[in-house]
């Protein structure tokens, strides 16, 4: 017994080095994971010039409910659906950018069918957890004839504000105050307006 303790205390140098390296790797790994968890909340606040978005409606030339990349390039706001050419709008023509919050059910038609087919009302339980919150970015702009357009994009939560800030920095007009965006966020409430 004595022999074994002595052996571990006076382990040869290469083993001690391996132990220390292993501890160090574990420590770095854990802290990286923790930092990643913490920073996952404002994920979009770093690089906002190109974000993944769902185009709900209103962006001329883009299909409704299309998923793609929303980006700011030069003086244009562009939406590019996967595998399609980008649809641009001049940032100078943007009249207002508004931010809200929307919740949307995930999974699409397949999930809806699956939930319907689930026995004993299991689909309802799935529905409880199958929702995702998005930042709803509303962009109001004018076309070449002066016609008013409004486009709505759903961005991953936390990305909307950074993207809006970048648009404003590039020259997009914003007529309403910041409080407006807080007021207009429509979490799923039940009260009746008016």
């Amino acid at each position, binding site marked *: 017994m004595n022999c074994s303790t002595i052996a571990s205390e006076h382990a040869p140098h290469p083993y001690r080095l391996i132990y220390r390296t292993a501890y160090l790797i574990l420590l770095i790994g854990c802290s990286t994971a923790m930092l990643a968890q913490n920073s996952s909340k404002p994920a979009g606040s770093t690089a906002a010039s190109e974000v993944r978005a769902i185009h*709900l*409606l*209103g962006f001329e030339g883009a299909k409704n409910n299309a998923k793609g990349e929303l980006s700011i390039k030069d003086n244009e706001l562009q939406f590019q659906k996967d595998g399609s050419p980008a649809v641009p709008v001049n940032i100078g023509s943007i009249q207002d950018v*508004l931010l*809200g919050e*929307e*919740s*949307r*059910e995930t999974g*699409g*038609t397949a999930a*809806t069918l699956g*939930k319907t087919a689930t026995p004993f009302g299991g689909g*309802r339980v799935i*529905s*409880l957890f199958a*929702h995702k919150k998005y930042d*709803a970015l*509303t962009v*109001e702009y*004018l*076309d070449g*004839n*002066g*016609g*008013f*357009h*409004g*486009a*709505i994009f759903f961005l991953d939560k936390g990305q909307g504000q950074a993207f809006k800030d970048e648009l404003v920095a590039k020259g997009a007009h914003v007529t*309403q105050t910041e409080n*407006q965006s807080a*007021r*207009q*966020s*429509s979490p*799923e*409430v*039940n*009260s*009746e*307006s*008016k």
Partner: protein
Amino acid sequence: MKANKKFSLVVLAAVAMIFVAWPSHLPAQAATADSAGAKRWSVQVDKVDPGDVNLASSFQIAIYENLFDELDKTKTFKQVLRTGDRNATDVPDLLILKTTVEKYTPGSETRRAVTTVSGATKLKVRSQLCTRDGKVILEQVVDGNVRFFGSNLRATHNLARNVAKTIQESPLPQPSQEPTSTPAQTSEVSSILAEQFER
């Protein structure tokens, strides 16, 4: 026997005559439709007025955009223009569609999915078709709801579809005869509940 032959010949001739006459009748109909179409109104969709209702801007924009699309789909109007469009000044017979939100009940998609009976998103608007000089020629109160499936914003699509449908079904005066002092046709569409089952 001879009489039978004669009878069948007459019937055959009559049928042939109908076939000959029918195609010429169709273009005539189309021509009248075209001439009537030449006198159709154009419409300019105005921005949605939220009134006293605290309505998210995404809802206002969604109503506006859906109205534009749905009115275009009905083919009731010669042209559907956006507010601010400079081309509108040259359009002779132009109506302006004004929409004011009267009531809004924000629902919950989760509650709809879980309970089925609660969580409906409800919208009620007053839509007015006015001439350039502000005379209201049609006024309606229209609902748009989402009761079962679909996101909250789906209510705006249902609402726009109902507005377009009621305009399509309402008789409008001929563009040439501008309405003078006739009162606006007011129809209270209390419950056009066209709930959507599609997402």
